[in-house]
């Protein structure tokens, strides 16, 4: 088992444990993200190191009015998902000015304000805050949002995303890893570019478990032997049920899973719910901070970047769920050009490395690997950034479900959640 300890402070770069190998695993991981590119990905990734960085021109073009930088750029993202030196305001989610080098440099370069807010705790809840505006053809108030594959695909399918002007995002077009290109739901990246990729596994507080004489969890099933009111699962139902399927030895392949399989997972979790198990979004970080939770389903980089010294991430023996979060411009985004500049900005390998090296997720940017290694020697052996072949072999993607399966999943999850 690979175990990742987080640092005592989020203000410092931390690279304390590092196991495994780098490039091949990483490439395969990305290949697994798409599920279709495994044969071509390794060589592509290995050749990706020296991808060029291209600046878009802000000079007047054929349509000068469209290329005017306007602001403030309203950017909604998940907690602990950009390089930052301070925490976002707990109530508003607003990241204080001066906290993120990536954002500060962007503001200075383009002379525009950026309202970066940690507003996304899980996909469905955030989506419900923008859905009425989108359905009514009104601006959502956001220029740039970061949503997971399945949700991004839904929004794009409904024509609720602004089309990206590729001329404004040359870095994205050039530097997106090939393994992440050609997604069936947006094959030409007309509407999205990935932000980070990651895995869902087990998080736990080693000290609390030791104090209570409980062994550190190695398998998903181990969470069933921890007091249920000290455990949380994710409100992201695909992650929770995906891991639940793995625990029962059922392959979480959307093409093979049946409604009965999902029912088995719900039945397996119900006794925990009866004993006080809760479901949370990204706010599990606060629960870990307050020592309210001893072990949980968590996303791979969070505890390493923003947890306490005793908070660890474990790749469960049964396997992990994988996903990619993507930048989208919701329909009606008022600062569209600035949003495109931001997409282009974070696809500069040096900036991508700066972000990935803080958030401990897998960067979708070609050339970021080398920059990460230069920035943080030893990082190449950190499986969060560069998953090992063993980890990659156990990654599963349980996102794109049939309508029937999705309805069953939502019903079962609502019932489990007492709703």
């Amino acid at each position, binding site marked *: 088992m690979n175990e990742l300890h987080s640092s005592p402070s989020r203000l410092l770069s931390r690279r304390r444990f590092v196991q495994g190998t780098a490039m091949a695993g990483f490439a395969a991981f990305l290949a697994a993200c798409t599920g279709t590119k495994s044969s071509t990905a390794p060589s592509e990734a290995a050749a990706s190191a020296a991808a060029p960085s291209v600046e878009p021109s802000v000079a007047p073009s054929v349509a000068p009015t469209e290329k005017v930088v306007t602001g403030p750029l309203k950017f909604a993202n998940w907690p602990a998902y950009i390089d930052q030196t301070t925490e976002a305001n707990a109530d508003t989610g607003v990241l204080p000015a001066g906290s993120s080098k990536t954002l500060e440099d962007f503001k200075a370069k383009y002379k525009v304000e950026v309202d970066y807010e940690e507003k996304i705790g899980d996909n*469905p*809840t955030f989506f*419900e805050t923008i*859905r009425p505006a989108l*359905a009514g053809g009104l601006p959502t108030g956001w220029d740039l949002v970061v949503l997971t594959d399945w949700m991004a695909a839904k929004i794009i399918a409904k024509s609720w995303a602004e089309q990206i002007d590729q001329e404004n995002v040359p870095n994205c077009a050039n530097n997106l890893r090939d393994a992440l290109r050609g997604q069936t739901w947006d094959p030409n990246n007309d509407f999205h570019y990935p932000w980070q990729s990651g895995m869902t596994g087990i998080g736990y507080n080693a000290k609390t478990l030791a*104090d*209570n004489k409980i062994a550190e969890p190695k398998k998903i099933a181990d969470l069933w032997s921890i*007091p249920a*009111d*000290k455990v949380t699962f994710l409100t992201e139902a695909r992650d929770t049920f995906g891991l639940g399927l793995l625990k029962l030895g059922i392959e979480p392949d959307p093409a093979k899973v049946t409604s009965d399989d999902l029912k088995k997972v719900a039945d397996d979790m119900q006794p925990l*719910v*009866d004993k*006080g*198990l*809760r*479901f949370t979004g990204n706010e599990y970080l606060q629960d870990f901070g*307050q*020592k*309210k939770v001893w072990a949980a389903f968590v996303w791979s980089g969070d505890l390493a970047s923003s947890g306490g010294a005793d908070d660890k991430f474990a790749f469960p023996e049964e396997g992990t769920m994988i996903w990619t979060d993507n930048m989208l411009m919701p329909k009606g985004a008022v600062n569209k050009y600035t949003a495109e500049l931001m997409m282009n900005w974070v696809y500069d390998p040096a900036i991508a490395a700066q972000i990935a090296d803080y958030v401990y997720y897998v960067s979708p940017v070609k050339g970021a690997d080398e920059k990460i290694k230069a920035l943080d020697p030893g990082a190449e052996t950190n499986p969060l950034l560069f998953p090992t072949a063993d980890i990659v072999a156990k990654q599963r993607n349980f996102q794109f479900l049939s309508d029937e399966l999705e309805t069953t999943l*939502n019903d079962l999850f*609502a019932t*489990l*959640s*007492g*709703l």
Partner: protein
Amino acid sequence: MTARPVARPGPGLRGRLGKALPYLLLAPGLLWLAVFYVLPAIQMFTYSISTGSVENGYTITMSADAYTEALNKFGKQFLNSILYGGVATILTLLIGFPVAYTIAFRGGRYKNVILFLVIAPFFTSFLIRTISWKILLGDEGPILAPLKHTFGLLPGTFSILGTPIAQVAGITYNFLPFMILPLYVALEKIDIRLIEAAEDLYANRGAAFRRVTLPLALPGVFAGSLLTFIPAMGDYINAELLGSPGTRMIGNVIQNRLLVQNDYPVGSALSFVLMAGILVAVAVYARLLGTEQLTG
């Protein structure tokens, strides 16, 4: 010569205005209720008997499916609402009555200060107050941490958050002023000489309280109970922040159905069932207490 009919003096502008005055005074309130209560209620009712989706629109099909689902699937959450709302109301009464009594009869010149303290929590938002309970009752919070680690009175696994206790405590705290204020108003109106008269007629203090003070305070008890119980029944913030999936109340389900799942028919049906339930409960309560007592 025919007598010309003499026009009888009419009621005059003043008289007409006088007759219309009650209606004019009622008009703003009625208009408000019509626009913000009656119309949405009608809209909700039509949703509850419709089928369809947010995207494709709803058609009134007179289907009772939503009501069937509302009644069959969410019995536990309805029960939780009645139980937690009821217990919290009783607790607010038990805590609030002595407070209101003290302010009314023993407050003296500090009366206004104490009343201000009662409503002081309202200067902070409901949400913040509930979140602060989350911190207070946290496993390693200021209450449990010393009891666990310093005094060793509680095992390390003990927690209150996520249990009905935390939820009822939160509701009780948040709605306490709604109980104290009507009780205070009722108690304050009591003529102290009535109690003195009871004591002069050889009633001991307990009997005087039972036979005089308490009956005269009943309108306050009734108003306070309604002001506490009705919103407590529909509350979902306390359950969301202090409870767990097993302690959800019907308000959580309504919020989730309307705002997360976009299941307007079931969400609306649940709202109507809740409304009907509350009306029945209030009617039974009014009957038990005796309506003539309630208007003071």
